[in-house]
């Protein structure tokens, strides 16, 4: 069984908010002049305060928009894409990391013409979790992944809702992996 403890969490659920409105709402979190070049997901993952000012997302451009702006190098950076198993696959990468602290971050931005074609999200959201190998005194929750013999998925949007509403979960999250999410 793989295990990590949640030490910090932030979520942003703008729903159908237009990118221009997101830009106006979050512009105070970025250097003047930087905001107009940032995508909606870059704004969402970068503006929510984190314990380390060190937030990433599964989309490299939004990660780089934020971390380059803050000049924050990172040792390992695993940008994933995926479908119904993406949340479980991302957690497996995080829980197999050899570092004592891992940030799991992701989201979607609301597509425009691609959404109309059915190949992009119609909803925007973003999340970031700081995970550690040891529980510490103030852990907010606990994540485990255990091998199982069956398959099953947890979409990124469903994973976001678990985090946003602090709901527990126990079930398959990716082929061969059972996820358990508990809140303190």
């Amino acid at each position, binding site marked *: 069984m793989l295990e990590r403890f949640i030490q910090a969490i932030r979520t942003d659920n703008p729903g159908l908010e237009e990118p221009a409105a997101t830009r106006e709402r979050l512009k105070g979190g970025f250097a003047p002049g930087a905001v107009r070049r940032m995508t909606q997901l870059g704004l969402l993952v970068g503006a929510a305060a984190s314990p380390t000012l060190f937030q990433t997302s599964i989309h490299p451009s939004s990660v780089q928009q934020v971390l380059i702006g803050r*000049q924050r190098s990172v040792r390992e*950076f695993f940008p994933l*894409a995926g*479908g119904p198993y993406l949340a479980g696959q991302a957690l497996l*990468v995080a829980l197999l990391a050899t570092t004592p602290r891992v940030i799991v971050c992701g989201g979607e931005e609301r597509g425009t013409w691609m959404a109309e074609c059915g190949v992009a999200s119609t909803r925007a959201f973003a999340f970031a979790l700081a995970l550690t190998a040891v529980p510490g005194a103030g852990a907010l929750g606990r994540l485990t992944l255990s091998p199982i013999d069956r398959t099953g998925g947890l979409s990124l949007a469903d994973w976001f809702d678990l985090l946003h509403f602090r709901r527990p979960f126990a079930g398959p999250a990716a082929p061969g992996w059972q996820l358990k999410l508990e809140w303190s």
Partner: protein
Amino acid sequence: MACHLSDSVRLAASACLTPLGDTAATLAALLRGERALQARPVLGREGGDRVPLALLPGRELDETVPPAWADAVRALLAAVPPAPWGDARHPVFVTSSNFGVGSLYAYRRGGDAAHLAYGEPFGCVDWLRRELGWGDNVTIFSHACVSAHLGLMQAARLVRAGLAERALVFSFDFLSPFVAGGFHALKILNADFPAPYAARATGSIGLGDGAAFAVLTRDVGELAIAAQSLHNEMFHFTANRPDGAGFAACLAPLAAAARGCRLWVKGHGTGTLEAGRLEATTFARIFPQAPLVGWKGSLGHTLGSCGLVELALVAAALRAGRAPGTVGSAAPVMAENVALEPFATAGYDAVLCASNAFGGAHAAFLLDHA
């Protein structure tokens, strides 16, 4: 001091496909100093400047439905050792920097909605998954030109932890007017052919089609991935830190692991001046005895797949006992360790394979005889 490297993750199989042919044909052509790159219009049938591109034989740059590279992928993957790929114990990792992005561009240009099925990463890979008969356990990584290294690292971690019996890493990047046009807009894809690590006045790259696979296990195969390292500078959207600190940070763990080992280095070597100089001088400083070669002067840059394409060629070179030199380059070079000509691999314990990417992303691993 003796060389002691881990052999806990073995390379059970690997192969690549390039415009020069399969692994054996590509290695033979590189050893002969042949160049796959040819001057072609950057926007395909819409024309534009002629730039160095290397396409699979008979393939045009413009997108088709289904993608014209699909048959080549099927042929390459026919050589993958049989296994229930995509089940819980046999995970598949697919990496690319392009996926089918050219299909999105083709849709925008021509309005044919059939292109959309291949246009975004998950849809493109899921189509391939179904075509190839893999199960659902397929993970997708995309991190520009170090993408393949991420697949290799996650695969190695699962194998090393005993959570996978075997892991398949597959990477593919096929050029399109969108990709070629993008690099052309950056002015690094221009009329000149690349000369990796050559100290010349103007830098240039070439782009190439490429696909490759590797199968990792714990106990099968005469080669081992002994150590892996990543580092992400997050310094600039395209450039590296001018002091080369990102290159050194990535190599430090491998230098420690390879203490006492005689290495040769398969570098990234796209043909750009600043990154090439930083890479060559950093290798010369940390591994002063190790010859450095790069093969993108012939194959072009196969982008997110270069790490896996070049791994297959390194493995083949080790088996053949001879490594190609830096094809397409010429003296004067940026550092004394740059090897322009082929050399025998028998005098070395291991190979360091490195790739770099936009945003100061660095990745490297050590490959040796188990």
